[in-house]
């Protein structure tokens, strides 16, 4: 009958090593490497005799121990700040054992803590379906967003006010038909023509009030008999011609003329 037991009574090669060192009452800082290596190997051999799977890591440490043992026989010197010092091949091993020991102790502390906490009980969550209801919706408003929107609104509003201001300026201009008459006369001069289409008096992007004031001015000029207008069909083109200040108007403008 063979025992197929994993070597997990020791948590690894370092665990075994620490055990052996402590068992032999050696100082970790002054391991008698020869003795401890022998003990380690003897232990592994016994495991194998019991047909226990010895993890390869245990073998790796065994090899490392043998290496240290051989180095101990041939002490090496090392340059240390100009002074020759004997290099201790155990140094690295000690460091590793100490680090392992730290966490082994931490594991023991955790175990105690676990044991303690297993004596504390919690209760399960209550059945909360009774309290479940339509989830309340809440608003995620942030001030930044609010201000941004209000800002946009103010810009829009300002644009609107600008347009309204333009309107009032146009109205002020309608008062001065005289200046429009001057303008019309100058257009005739600039274009150097006797006859002009009404539309030619208008600026390319005239708005409605501009059209109206131009038309009113034309009527005024006809009243003053400084201009003649002719429209062949309803809604047709209005052909205007300046009187050469002779003052003999011949024709009245057609009624119902609409320029849009």
């Amino acid at each position, binding site marked *: 009958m063979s025992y197929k037991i994993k070597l997990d009574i020791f948590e690894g090669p370092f665990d075994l090593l620490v055990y052996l060192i402590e068992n032999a009452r050696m100082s970790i800082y002054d391991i008698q490497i020869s003795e401890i290596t022998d003990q380690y190997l003897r232990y592994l051999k016994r495991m194998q005799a019991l047909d226990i799977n010895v993890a390869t890591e245990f073998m790796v440490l065994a090899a490392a121990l043998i290496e240290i043992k051989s180095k101990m026989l041939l002490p090496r010197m090392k340059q240390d700040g100009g002074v020759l010092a004997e290099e201790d091949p155990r140094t690295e091993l000690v460091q590793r054992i100490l680090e392992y020991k730290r966490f082994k102790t931490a594991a023991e502390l955790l175990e105690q803590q676990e044991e303690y906490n297993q004596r504390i009980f919690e209760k399960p969550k209550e059945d909360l379906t009774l309290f479940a209801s339509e989830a309340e919706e809440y608003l995620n408003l942030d001030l930044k967003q609010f201000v941004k929107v209000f800002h*946009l609104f103010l810009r829009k509003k*300002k644009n609107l006010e600008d347009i309204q201001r333009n309107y009032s300026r146009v109205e002020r201009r309608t008062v001065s038909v005289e200046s429009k008459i001057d303008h019309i006369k100058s257009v005739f001069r600039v274009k150097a023509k006797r006859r002009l289409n009404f539309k030619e008096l208008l600026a390319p992007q005239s708005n409605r009030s501009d059209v109206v004031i131009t038309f009113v001015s034309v009527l005024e000029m006809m009243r003053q008999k400084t201009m003649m207008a002719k429209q062949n069909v309803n809604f047709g083109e209005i052909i205007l011609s300046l009187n050469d200040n002779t003052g003999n108007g011949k024709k009245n403008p057609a009624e119902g003329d609409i320029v849009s």
Partner: protein
Amino acid sequence: MTAKKTIKSAFESMLFVWGEPLDVSIAAEIFNISRKDAYDCFKELQAEYEQEGRGIRIREIDKTFQYCTYVENSEYIERLCNPAKEKRLSQSALEVLAIIAYKQPVTRGEIESIRGIKCERVIEGLVKKDLIAEVGRSAGIGRPILYGTTPAFLKNFGFKDLKDLPEIDDIESIVCKNEESDTLDLQQISIDFIKS
């Protein structure tokens, strides 16, 4: 004989893990005390929780005792169990809200003339969300409803009162300045507000 303090403390632990109503006689048996003594311990505990105004209480049901929550706290439990869903306001709702916040009390007509668009639905929505409310009637024709913001509105933005709202005059001057230089730094404005 176990000290009464220990027994009472143990009874609390037992009630807690048991969950369901715990029979006085079962509790008595564990300490090998009389049912009367056990009952008295439970009653003392019950009184203590009441006196201290604890959020959990001990209730008695036919010689059994049970932990339960304090009845007045059901509202908070409900809130805990029904975490509120986040909802955002639409752009138009925000705009209407902003107009109301700054121009309140204001009629729907005024809002619409500012925005140049109908906003009956938006106003309804904001009323339903308790962000705005009717605050009176205008003296104008038809005596239209005047709207204003609610305390819920203030709470949402963390404002103490309406004076906490970012200065509108400042914004206007900033807007004008910006239009001249044509460099609009929105980020800057909002940071100023948060600082204020």
